[in-house]
């Protein structure tokens, strides 16, 4: 079976491509490079900017996709969709993000960074009945950097002053490894479940440098290591020929269970290998709330797909033994329930006709989303995100393989109350390889 698996040049090419992508992107400590510290300042608060990547298809259609399923994609927005697979799929993608941050005085700074989107695998264990999903994907991201300069009177007697600069930096975030099964119980019903391991390090650093060589640089960092396990349950109901012939209407629900993360925090001084730990490490528990998702999808004539999604997470119930920016133990005033609404449309002119022209076999997508953030730096001020998404899905290599190029542009925040306004934009590329593996030979 293994020799047959490697037998074709095409398969070797696929594996080489995926291997190259995974090898480069899985470089130690940079798996989700997350652009180090070049992102939105709002990512400083709470556990960072929450992220999710269901599939490149759903990403271009507003980022929802709870009810979305397709033979061409593995959808990690709902584990129930894993029961409806025919090809082994491997997906890897990365993105380039830019953000223009503006304050109330119209001062602006621009930052860009590249990062990995996700690595996903889907394996049909039984065609369109039982399937496996496996993914390594982001949960949250902390990525910011701000700099300030000032003068300090370093010698009051001699009235000597020295220029200094402080860089406030935040890096890291949480990732999750997910593995689970989806099973089709009946023509219309598919259920799924996954185990999700959430882990990561969030680091906030403050680097103080002076213009004079008599002053040593100090790099003070708070590193919080978090780890926990949760699970996601999903259900997908698909009805055919609802409004007319050749249509499918799907309703999907998915719940990620509340869980507790174990955390330990250390305050360090110094650089990388020569850090001194200050004080004792602090341990604590962080309680994550439930995440509930509801989605609708309508597919018409194998050409048009419409989706709408809602996500709700009661972060006002967040509790933690450790403090975070925007949170002190027992005081979650700056946390609020998160609501995310999205919708999108896809047009595939060729439908299921694999012999049609290339441009007709490209899928064209558009979507939007609204996200009320779970944490705000200022009580009473909501940090809302409004964004437009879109993309192209281009066939490549073999019929089951596609390259998705997506874009996103949106705004976040406000300049009221000394806050900042983000204008963000991004582009991503995802390689989605699908092949039929493990073909059983028949003897004639």
């Amino acid at each position, binding site marked *: 079976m293994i020799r047959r698996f490697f037998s074709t040049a095409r398969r070797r090419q696929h594996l*080489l*491509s995926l291997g*190259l*992508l995974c090898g*480069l*992107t899985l470089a130690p400590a940079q798996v989700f490079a997350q*652009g*180090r510290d*070049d992102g939105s*300042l*709002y990512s*400083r608060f709470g556990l960072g900017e929450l992220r999710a990547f269901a599939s490149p298809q759903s990403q271009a259609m507003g980022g929802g996709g709870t009810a979305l399923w397709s033979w061409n994609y593995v959808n990690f927005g709902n584990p129930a969709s894993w029961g409806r697979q025919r090809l082994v799929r491997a997906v890897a993608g*990365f993105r*380039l993000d830019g953000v223009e*941050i*503006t*304050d109330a005085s119209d*001062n*602006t*700074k*621009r*930052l*860009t*960074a*590249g990062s990995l989107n996700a690595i996903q695998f889907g394996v049909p264990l039984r065609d369109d009945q039982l399937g496996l999903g496996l993914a390594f994907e982001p949960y949250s991201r902390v990525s*910011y*950097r*701000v*700099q*300030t300069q*000032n003068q*300090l009177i*370093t*010698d*009051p*007697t001699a009235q000597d002053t020295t220029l200094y600069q402080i860089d*406030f930096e935040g890096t890291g975030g949480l990732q999750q490894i997910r593995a689970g099964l989806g099973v089709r119980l009946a023509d219309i019903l598919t259920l799924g479940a996954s185990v999700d391991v959430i882990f990561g390090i969030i680091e*906030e650093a*403050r680097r*103080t440098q*002076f213009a004079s060589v*008599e*002053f*040593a*640089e*100090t790099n*003070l960092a708070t590193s919080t290591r978090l780890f926990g396990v949760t699970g996601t349950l999903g259900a997908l109901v698909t009805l055919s020929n609802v409004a007319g012939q050749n249509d499918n209407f799907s309703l999907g629900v998915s719940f990620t269970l509340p869980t507790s993360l174990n955390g330990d925090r250390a*305050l360090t001084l110094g650089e990388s290998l020569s850090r*001194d730990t*200050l*004080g004792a490490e602090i341990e604590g528990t962080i309680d994550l709330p439930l995440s509930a998702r509801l989605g609708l999808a309508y597919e018409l004539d194998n050409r048009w797909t419409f989706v709408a999604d809602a996500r709700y997470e009661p972060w006002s119930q967040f509790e933690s033994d450790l403090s975070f*920016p925007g949170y002190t133990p027992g005081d979650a005033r700056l946390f609020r329930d998160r609501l995310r609404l999205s919708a999108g449309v896809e047009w595939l002119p060729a439908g299921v006709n694999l012999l049609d022209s290339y441009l007709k076999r490209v899928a064209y997508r558009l979507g939007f989303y609204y996200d009320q953030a779970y944490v705000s*730096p200022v009580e009473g001020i909501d940090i809302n995100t409004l964004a437009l998404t879109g993309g192209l899905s281009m066939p*490549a*290599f073999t019929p089951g393989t596609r*390259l998705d190029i997506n874009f996103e542009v949106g705004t976040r925040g406000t300049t009221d109350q*000394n*806050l*900042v306004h983000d204008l963000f934009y991004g582009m991503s*590329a995802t390689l989605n390889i699908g092949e039929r593996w493990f073909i059983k030979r028949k003897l004639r």
Partner: protein
Amino acid sequence: MTRTRFLVPILVGLLTLTACDDPSNVGIELVEEGGGEPVVRVLTPSMIEEEPINDITGAVPRVLAGQVNDPMLGTITATGYLDFQRVDSVNASDITGVMLRLVRDYVYGDTLAALTLTVRELTEEWNALGARADTTLPLGASVTTFTFEPLDSLITVDLPETWVRDNDTTLVSFHFGEVFHGFALEATAAEAVVGFDFNQSFLRITTEQDTLDYPVSLTLSGVIRTGQPTIPEGRFLIQDGTGPTLSFNVDFDGLDDTPLNAAFVRFFADTLTIQETPPNFVRPLIETLQLVRITEEDAAFVMAEASLDDNGSYRFSDATLREVLQQTFFGQDLYDHFALRIPFTDNTISVMLLFDATSDETAPEVLLTLSPSS
């Protein structure tokens, strides 16, 4: 298919795009409550005390000899010990003369009164390494006396013919180093202490055909003070050679685990009072001080050096000083107390008056630039 061949390189290329950044201070209000502004704390050393000390005066490039009566600081008597090293050889019978050639490079005291020193033999082998100012060596017979002006830079002393005849064989012997133990220069009549440069002084052996210069191989200065100094109030005396120096401590309460960007220690010197001397009386000032940490085992480690600056102060600043204090904030036990020392290689009896903590403007100070975590 051609276009798909470029997919992987394109994707890899996108991945290698690095972050472009322009951090600036936009949004600084969103992070400022995290603290971090550096602050300067000025501490006053506590428990400042004069510390008696016998400086190392052996195996250093200068030897002291003479006696000075300082109206402020008492009487200081110095005896210099020199040994020489044989180079090459001549016949003993060819020796016509032996001269002690001394180059003066230091003076403390009355610059007009002539100085008379006695050259005496040393009778036993001695070791200069690490020897301190209170060391005395057994003296042998007097060889000669010589008189010179304290400001003379070159002093030559012809040793008596009788001594040369009695020692000519020794002077040329291969066992010179084992048999001959050098000379002591003892004050007979003096109003000053002078210093002779080790590297330019030697014992000159003269023949009719040749001249051999035996360089100095060992030096030691025995220095003692008699009588108590009379110091104005509000000052500490520090003096090279006989001491005293200063020891002190600093209270770093409340600075546990605090990041330290810089540490300076400053002592202000009373250069006016110390230079109030009788006419023609020279009282050299200490140019360089060392700040050392003294461990519980009494070991001394230099952390920084400072020279007297234009503001009349010694300002100590060094990465070692910063690191010692930083580790102290982290709970390390690296010292028992601090002290000021004069580099022993100078070998002088120079002095300085340092202000104590009673005056706000000239009190010693420890300046710490800190970046507290909150």
